[in-house]
């Protein structure tokens, strides 16, 4: 597949961004990772990725950031035709209930990770969300069997009439 599916990590604290990216290393062979330190930078990165003919499969976004906050950024992504398919995960240390509800309603937030996270938890969420993405986009599931949720991908192949020719 020539069209690359990116994971975008948006986090303003550099140490935290680095930790997130490091924990996602195992996905990098299939889903290249890009990072941004602010919503504004993230928008530029998103634009560049699509301009290069690639796409974004998953956004992991911090909540409290200078400038536009994470929830608003995700809402903006959601309203964009091109990018609204991307799975959206809010990574946050301090969201109140109101913000979360807003994110779920308006950005159609797919998941919510509370800081501090564990590597297992993060991998589980990312695996599940990327699996959802691949199935929702009807991409060939076979090339992702080793990195994503193979049972769900097989079940998808069983029920989606992929045939023998």
């Amino acid at each position, binding site marked *: 597949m*020539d069209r690359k599916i990116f994971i975008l990590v948006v986090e303003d604290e550099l140490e935290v961004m680095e930790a997130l990216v490091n924990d996602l290393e195992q996905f990098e062979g299939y889903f290249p990772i890009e990072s941004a330190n602010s919503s504004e930078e993230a928008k530029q990165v998103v634009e560049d990725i699509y301009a290069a*003919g690639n796409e974004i499969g998953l956004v992991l976004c911090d909540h409290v950031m200078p400038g536009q906050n994470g929830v608003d950024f995700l809402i903006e992504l959601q309203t964009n035709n091109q990018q609204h398919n991307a799975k959206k995960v809010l990574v946050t240390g301090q969201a109140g209930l109101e913000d979360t509800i807003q994110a779920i309603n308006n950005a159609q937030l797919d998941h919510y990770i509370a800081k501090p996270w564990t590597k297992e938890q993060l991998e589980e969420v990312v695996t599940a969300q990327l699996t959802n993405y691949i199935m929702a986009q009807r991409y060939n599931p*076979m*090339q*992702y*069997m*080793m990195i994503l949720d*193979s*049972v769900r991908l*097989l*079940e*998808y*192949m*069983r*029920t*989606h*009439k*992929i*045939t*023998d*020719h």
Partner: protein
Amino acid sequence: MKLDTKQIVGISIGLLGLISPFFFQLEGLSDAGHVALGIFFLAAAYWMLEPFPIYATSVLVIFLQVILLSQQGFLFPESTAQYTPDDYTAFIGTLASPIIILFLGGFVLADAAVKYDLDRNLTRILLSPFGKKPGSIVLGLMVVTALLSAFMSNTATTAMMMTVILPIMARIGKTDPLRIGLSLCIPFAANIGGIATPIGTPPNAVVIGALSQQGINIPFGEWMILATPLVVVALLFTWFLLIKMFKPEAESIEIDMSGKFNTSGNAILLYIAFAATVLFWVTESFHSVKSAIIALIPVVFLTLSGVVTKEDIRKLPWEVLWLVAGGISLGISMKSTGLAEWIVGSIEWSSFGTISLLVVFAGVSVLMSNFLSNTVTATLLIPLAVSLATSGVAGEGFNLIIVSLVIGVSASMAMMLPISTPPNAIAMSTGTIQTSNMAKAGISVGIFGIILVVIYALFYWPFILN
């Protein structure tokens, strides 16, 4: 649409193939034959290089024949001495040919079976007698897989069976060769199992479609009588091979399959429809109701009862039907334009013996379908074999039905590479096996398959057909 270099090359080669016959006057080939040859080149190039999805090429093939070769086309509105053009309905009618309807019935049944988990529950029941020894488990898995894939898509069967073996794999040692054996037994059994019935896999449809063009009808049951013994032997050999090549270390393995048959009204209707349809198909020779007509039973029954909904119908793999129809229609013009005859006539066939011809066809078919779609392989080879057999130049033993079977069956014996068949690709994608594992076992199965097909073509099939 953005085209990459590979696509551009493929498209160019195809177009070049389409127009090249116009630049040469081939002796003994009619004008229409030149056109048909061009279309054949284009189809071959597009099917093999796949610049477009293969079902798209199939529709293109039908379309090109309609506009170039039919009575309603540009080039041959009138009959000439050399070429009496077919009505365009002959080409588009392939989309509703009996084999297509038969497949449609199979699709609807399989779709409903998956929807109500019949496949999974059958697996659970059928696997239980095979105990806990790794060897017998592998055999059990292969038998069940082959049985299911005879009536369902090989790919869907493989996907389902992989979900059965993934938990087993998690329990056995990381270095146990059994892992490889398990991963390979499923796709191999699915490939082989597809041979068993007319609806098992599309190459069978191409064979049956081509034969019916020649006025030969192969009833469902007869196909099974011809193919099943071969499937059983091939399956046993493959099992033996895998157990020997990848000797299991584990003493016993546990299969944990919990589940219950769906007992809703709809599910019961499906079970009845499934059983009845299969029963009528298998017994076609006794009641002589054509299998395509029987295939309408599940379609009518399941749609009327709402077991299969509009959404389900929408999601059927229609592209497979297009693909097969395209293949059948290509055969029509090759015959009517005299192209097939011309190809046959240009080679000195009598210098080959019957056996060597069978070996060549089986070998080429296995080889080609290792790299190409099985259906495409059958589609490209069968017109050749048909004209060879009907022209009689290849001698007495070269029977039309037998050579078609050789090609069709051999096309399903290709399982050397991950790209050979979708089931292979699925097994490979789980990451438990190396390409070298698959290649070693796949080559052995392929070679054995060629030998097996030739033996059946020489002894068993003539015996049954006579």
